[in-house]
């Protein structure tokens, strides 16, 4: 389960890396954080794990100071919806310092944002706001996925000097992590790949890649939905597509995507964030340009809404990207 693996990873890095400091609201034991990702940390490392007041901007700012002093702060924003309060600290402080000080400092702050809907938490506790942080110069936007080892990802991020927003979809917490292993990802054919310097992407399909006629690019919880969509389409309709799941959303490593698109000739992107200037639009722009004239269809950007996320479960389902919407897009793309 993602929540257990993340919790174990945090214990591990606090244990092995004295530079790691964890900050967040209500993370102290016995409560151990709203989603229990931080359970046990204050007990084991009272000095380097601080439960903070309800001050999202302040805690990210404190993390900036720690990071510029050689520490590796990991900040939990209780609900990703509240990272909006740290927008200035991330845009005008954390990401600015290394560049505007001409490289005299690094500011490797990792901001964890438990995000996403499907829980009926309503308009201010269900959002996926990461799209607003894409393209902030110097910022890495990374997403937990059902197919990436969170410890490996966090470990890689702790080796790098860029600040990071790490998106964790709430619905993934209770999901198992299925790692690529000897050419398979669970029931699917799959492998990990990507360019040096970028976090790896996982590519998988339910038939041989050569038989896939579309590429689906999805991250986080929508990667899980997309996998289900591909499985159902393969079994029920003999429609075959390949799924590419990046861990790194920005900057984007297009290599694994292009590798697949060059086989399938068609691309669908899926994200839970609201439509309009969303993550997938950059895929449409870049892949559309890099493979101009070589795609059978325009890149299909699949997103939610736009609109607020209603607390009524029935209405929430209508707004958020779902299985049917994904299957429809993939069906079209496979034609």
């Amino acid at each position, binding site marked *: 389960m993602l929540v257990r693996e993340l919790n174990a990873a945090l214990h591990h890095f606090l244990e092995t890396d004295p530079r790691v400091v964890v900050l967040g609201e209500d993370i*102290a034991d016995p*409560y151990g954080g709203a989603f229990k990702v931080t359970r046990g940390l204050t007990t084991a490392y009272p000095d380097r794990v601080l439960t903070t007041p309800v001050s999202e901007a302040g805690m990210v700012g404190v993390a900036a100071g720690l990071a510029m002093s050689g520490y590796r702060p990991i900040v939990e924003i209780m609900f990703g919806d509240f990272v909006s309060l740290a927008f200035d600290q991330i845009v005008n402080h954390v990401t600015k310092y290394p560049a505007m000080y001409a490289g005299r400092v690094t500011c490797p702050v990792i901001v964890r944002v438990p995000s996403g809907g499907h*829980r*009926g*938490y*309503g308009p*201010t506790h269900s959002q996926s706001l990461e799209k607003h942080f894409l393209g902030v110069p110097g910022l890495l936007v990374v997403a937990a996925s059902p197919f990436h080892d969170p410890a490996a990802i966090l470990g890689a991020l702790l080796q790098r000097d860029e600040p990071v927003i790490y998106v964790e979809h709430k619905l993934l917490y209770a999901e198992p992590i299925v790692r690529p292993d000897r050419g398979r990802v669970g029931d699917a054919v799959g492998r990990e790949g990507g360019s040096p310097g970028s976090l790896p992407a996982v590519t998988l399909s339910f038939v041989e890649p050569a038989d896939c006629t579309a590429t689906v690019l999805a991250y986080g919880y929508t990667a899980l939905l997309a996998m289900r969509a591909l499985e159902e389409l393969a079994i029920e309709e003999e429609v075959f597509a390949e799924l590419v799941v990046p861990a790194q959303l920005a900057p984007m490593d297009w290599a694994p995507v292009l590798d697949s698109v060059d086989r399938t000739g068609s691309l669908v992107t899926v994200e839970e964030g609201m439509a309009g200037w969303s993550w997938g639009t950059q895929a449409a722009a870049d892949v559309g340009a890099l493979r101009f004239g070589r795609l059978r269809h325009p890149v299909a950007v699949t997103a939610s809404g736009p609109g607020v996320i*209603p607390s009524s*479960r029935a209405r929430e389902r209508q707004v958020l990207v779902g299985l049917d919407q994904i299957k429809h897009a993939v069906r079209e793309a496979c034609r």
Partner: protein
Amino acid sequence: MRLDPDPRLAGAPGDPRDVRLYRRMRFIRRFEETLLSLFEEGVLNGTTHACVGQEADCVAVIEHLRPGDHIFSNHRCHGHYLAWTGDAVGLLAEVMGKAHGVVDGIGGSQHLCAPGFKSNGILGGTLPAAAGIALAMKLADDDAISTVFMGDGAWGEGVVYETMNMAALWELPLLVVVENNGYSQSTPIRLNMAGDIQGRFAAFGIETAHIDSTDVLEIDAVAARQVEAVRSTRRPHGLIIDTYRLCHHSKSDDNRPEAEIAERWTIEPLVIHGRRLPDDVRARVDADVEGALNEIVARELS
């Protein structure tokens, strides 16, 4: 304002004041308890923040507000909403995500809107909006006031201080009611707040009353003074009520010492004020509330 609520809940004609206050607190208590059990039964989903134990604040403060005034509430807004509107049907339907809910099932438990009432689950961010509403009242030059309810934990948010400063500078008719239940979700106030809440108001020269009580009559007296002070002086005032939350923060997230909770059950608002009513009267009111709520729940669940 009232959305013609059931008199058995919001107050029956001819209720003496003591009875009326008890009835209204009992109504909020039983509504919240009903909601929580519906969650446990899995009938409801999403999230909620009940105000069990804090009913005296809602009722005592809102007794002194009138049509034209405005209330901005936070995540723990049911008591405020029910005390202002009496609208149990709309709120239950809203939490159930129904189309005839307060805001059509879109906002849910923490995002309510009715004439003179709004709430938002983003802590602290509601204060400048409440100040803006007060500024509108100032520009309109009437005697309405804007009231905002916040908790102890919300003092972590910087925008709260930005608002205090502007409200004091611009002399806005704003009443800031702090329901200090000693905890911010799981965190005791000593781990979240340096200094104290009085000092935070004092820093901006905002006159504040502080009361540590769950007795609706005691709170009522102080609230009356503060509401009147804002209304007449057209300047912001604070009202700090030290209270206690008897339920979970949300649904199943309580790590507080059992002894601490148990002790607070002995001095909760219904116990304290209930004693003042003859047993038969109290029994009748309890029956009224039970009857009215059961009808509503039955109707909404059918």
